């Protein structure tokens, strides 16, 4: 199905195909891998901050970067591309020993890609504020819901006493990634990476 003028649907890199699996040709796969590598590079700054403030237990900066980049990957290349963007990072983080909870990110990052797909598939124009805000809200809520079992079963943390920290994380992980993602999608559209 061809997109109408002014409509930008998932996957933006080839809007005429379905979002699942999305763009899975060589270009789609390699571009997803490169987006994940860009995410790994940017996460170097974020993980340092998260380790400094909370030992990496309550990632805030990392969450901002991951929500932005995974949303971008999914909106550009569809669900499979989004999952590649999401799940290369935990593998590399484990391979380089940068975080002990990196294997858990396989699930949390994939969940963000699924959120981006579910939200994006409901919008006729994903390069819009309502779409990116809906995605960041969905991703933030799902992440908190997934981190509670990690904190309870893995770290035996009293999660009721962590509610303030969860609220703080969510407070930042909704507006900031929305601004970043909307900006990036606009830049990518103007740079000519969006195809019919």
């Amino acid at each position, binding site marked *: 199905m061809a997109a109408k003028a002014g409509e930008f649907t998932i996957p933006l890199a080839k809007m005429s195909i379905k979002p699942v699996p999305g763009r899975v040709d060589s270009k789609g796969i390699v571009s997803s891998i490169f987006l994940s590598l860009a995410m790994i590079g*940017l996460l170097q700054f974020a993980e340092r901050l998260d380790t400094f403030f909370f*030992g990496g237990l309550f990632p805030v900066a990392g969450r901002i970067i991951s929500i932005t980049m995974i949303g971008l990957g999914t909106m550009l290349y569809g669900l499979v591309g989004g999952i590649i963007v999401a799940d290369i990072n935990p593998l590399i983080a484990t391979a*380089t020993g940068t975080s002990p909870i990196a294997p858990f990110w396989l699930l949390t990052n994939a969940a963000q890609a699924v959120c981006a797909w579910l939200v994006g598939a409901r919008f006729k124009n994903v390069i819009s504020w309502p779409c990116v805000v809906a995605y960041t809200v969905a991703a933030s809520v799902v992440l908190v819901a997934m981190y509670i079992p990690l904190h309870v079963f893995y770290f035996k943390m009293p999660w009721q006493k962590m509610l303030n920290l969860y609220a703080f994380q969510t407070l930042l992980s909704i507006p900031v990634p929305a601004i970043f993602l909307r900006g990036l999608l606009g830049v990518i559209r103007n740079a000519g990476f969006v195809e019919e």
Partner: protein
Amino acid sequence: MARLLYTFALEGRSWVTRLHPMTMATLVLSVAIVAFSTLHLGVLGATLLVLLLFMVVGRLPTRTTLAPMVLILPLCFFITLIQTLARPEGIVASWNLLGREITISAVGFILGLRITLRVVLLAMILTIFFTVVHPAKFTKALCDLRVPFKYAYSFTLALRFLPLMLEELATIKNAQQSRGYDIDQVNPFLRVFRIFPLMVPLVLIALRRASTIALALDLRAFDARPDRTFFVDVNRGPLDLGLRAVGLSAAAVVLIAAIAGWL
């Protein structure tokens, strides 16, 4: 970014690098089952000793393999701190700070240390996995499990291009610095909000470079034939089967003991 662990596997100087990747995956699974089943100090301590023994017998590079453990220290510190301050049992000291009661729990402190041991175990087995498994063999093993080649290959491709992208990021950072924007000088509380000037050029460069590489891959008929060949081969030997049996049996015993309440 830490040194990539798999360089040891590429050198192939140890017998453990010749193990089947799925044998190592089975050992990771076994240790994960043990670590998640119980917080019993004896069991976790014994597992840690087994892993250290495996490192010695396998002649793994100690410094490279244990270096990631340093990175988990802040995490373990915060876990122990939170447990010590938040647990209501075994209070050994308390005082009033600005109208709020602060308590120190001995039970929480011990629990924090046990969780630290659990985190160390999981981090160590994953580090060992990526130290001894050759990425190309891992791809082959995944293909043998009927994972489509283009997806199985993506991890190897990512490892190969990671240094390139980090170099691009450094170049962008230098370019922005020369324009007066230095992210390292930004207030740490605001740093993540100021990352956008690095993010935009990095994403555009990544997409542009990916287009070129995808074109090169297509020109070389990437994934054009389903019956592809590999320059490495992976075989299961008696040692593989033995290690898998021992690992899974030990994990099953601990799991059953934990469910039965013996641990």
